[in-house]
């Protein structure tokens, strides 16, 4: 089944059910299906067809989703060329994917050497395109949605999914079919876009902040959001907001995903925002893998047991299965998962093996079935033969009352291999010297403690809130140089 068919089904059965809710409008499934159909015909009328790949630079949340669904409806592969990215970066991504045409809102969205189609011009042709056929049924196994990873480990990796794959992800996800889901991150981000599509596939309601500056508790209350989905960085903002505006409505559940959710943040959210806190683990290549429910938050920072349909194995260095509680590299298998990367055979060979995806994360599957992620295997430091995991250092430093968040990384040494060092961001109004934190960590970690700790105004992060350790390493190298 295609997205267009699924949408038509929702529109037929529940035409008046809300599909998209913005601060100023509600769009029902009936209206959405009609809008998507009209735009799909207008796109085809403008010369867009299934033979080309279209880069999309559309900022408005509703417009972006309607454009995406319309392109899916005519079988045209798409990739987001995010408006926040500079033109050179958008151009590189377009070249890697093989984009032939950019569909944008403004002339600055165009990319040299590629055809440009203005969304307004397409809309202007909607009337002329009325009455044209809706198109023929297609192969739902054709890859139509190109998604980029976060790029925290280098140039972003790209995966491409068919509608059939997205449908499997959506079917395996939390059941949102009767839920109102608010995800404040913009639709141009990979995970936000996918979650919105999953919600629409299931027939739920996407609550879109769409540029609203209202605090999250206010937005949740106003739009009766039953799920709020945030990254850990948004989680910290949420905490600040509930301190000012009060807790979330009792109906609102929270899911944190996309990066490590420290136990300090979890406990603070449980105490002050909502007792209905969930933490998930997933990857761009697999979608959601595991989910920790409200009773599963302890010092291990578990990401919960694998969700139905997800297979998780932890391997020793010799690739034999690790025992429960034993640390090793993780491999994953989920319905509709990616089978490789676009334009990167080396990375495909490294990460996709024997039908499994190997993200390069270190983990344990504990005896109670809970998955605990210890960070990336290639982040592991080896100092004089001692294995040191950054996340172990980070968890200890974040126990210090002055530390908001920490990032551990190696200082390359010709003698010792890699010397662990760290950078921290302090809680508002707190003061603490690096030397005091070094002593604190040494008492708890011994030889695996960081030998130097920089106190920074803010840790460098990408838009999803992941700490950019490469920048920390580069900063230290510049200082050393």
């Amino acid at each position, binding site marked *: 089944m295609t997205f267009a068919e699924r949408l038509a089904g929702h529109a037929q059965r529940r035409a008046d059910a809300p599909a998209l809710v913005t601060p100023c409008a509600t769009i029902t499934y009936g209206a959405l299906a009609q809008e998507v159909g009209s735009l799909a015909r207008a796109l085809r009328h403008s010369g867009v067809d299934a033979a080309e790949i279209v880069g999309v630079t559309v900022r408005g949340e509703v417009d972006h989703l309607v454009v995406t669904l319309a392109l899916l409806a005519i079988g045209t592969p798409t990739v987001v060329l995010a408006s926040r990215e500079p033109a050179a970066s958008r151009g590189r991504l377009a070249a890697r994917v093989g984009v032939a045409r950019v569909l944008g809102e403004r002339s600055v969205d165009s990319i040299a050497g590629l055809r440009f189609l203005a969304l307004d011009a397409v809309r202007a042709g909607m009337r002329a395109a009325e009455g044209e056929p809706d198109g023929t049924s297609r192969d739902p196994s054709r890859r139509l949605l190109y998604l980029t990873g976060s790029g925290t480990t280098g140039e972003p990796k790209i995966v491409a999914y068919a509608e059939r794959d997205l449908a499997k992800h959506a079917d395996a996800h939390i059941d949102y079919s009767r839920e109102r889901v608010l995800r404040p991150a913009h639709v141009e981000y990979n995970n936000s876009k996918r979650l919105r599509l999953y919600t629409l596939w299931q027939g739920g309601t996407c609550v879109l902040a769409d540029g609203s500056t209202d605090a999250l508790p206010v937005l949740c209350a106003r739009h009766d959001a039953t799920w709020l989905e945030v990254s850990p960085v948004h989680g910290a903002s949420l905490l600040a907001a509930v301190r000012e505006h009060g807790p979330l409505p009792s109906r609102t559940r929270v899911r944190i995903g996309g990066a490590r959710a420290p136990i300090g943040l979890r406990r603070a959210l449980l105490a002050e925002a909502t007792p209905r806190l969930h933490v998930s683990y997933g990857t761009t290549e697999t979608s959601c893998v595991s989910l920790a429910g409200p009773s599963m938050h302890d010092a291990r920072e578990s990401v919960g047991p694998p969700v139905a349909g997800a297979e998780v194995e932890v391997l020793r260095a010799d690739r034999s299965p690790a025992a429960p509680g034993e640390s090793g590299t993780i491999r994953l298998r989920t319905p509709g998962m990616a089978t490789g990367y676009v334009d990167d055979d080396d990375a495909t060979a490294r990460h996709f093996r024997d039908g499994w995806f190997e993200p390069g994360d270190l983990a344990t599957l504990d005896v109670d079935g809970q998955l605990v992620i210890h960070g990336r295997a290639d982040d592991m430091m080896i100092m004089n033969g001692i294995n040191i995991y950054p996340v172990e250092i980070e968890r200890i430093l974040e126990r210090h009352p002055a530390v908001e968040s920490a990032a551990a990384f190696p200082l390359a*040494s*010709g*003698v*010792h291999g890699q*010397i662990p060092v760290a950078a921290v961001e302090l809680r508002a109004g707190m003061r603490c010297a690096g030397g005091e934190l070094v002593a604190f960590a*040494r008492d708890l970690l011994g030889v695996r403690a960081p*030998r*130097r700790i920089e106190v920074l105004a803010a840790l460098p992060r990408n838009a999803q809130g992941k700490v950019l350790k490469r920048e920390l390493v580069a900063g230290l190298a510049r200082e*050393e140089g």
Partner: protein
Amino acid sequence: MDARAVRQVLIDGLEAGGFAQARRTTFREPFLDGTLDPAFDDLELDSLARMEVCIAIEVALGISLAPEELQRYRSLGALADDLLVRLAA
């Protein structure tokens, strides 16, 4: 970086390596102001303490030294003096 700061780096390394005397003011202060210069042999440092001294030097001063190279120095003060010279070079 002055002589006292370089000596402080060595004290930090000794402390990290579990060398208890480094915490005592009767050792620490005279060494920092240059009036105490204990011989390496008298300190009886174990391998962990030697490693931590070298790590402290590398992290704070950017000078790489292998633990076995410490044997080249007669005393802790001689090591501090050589580090000062290398920093100035």
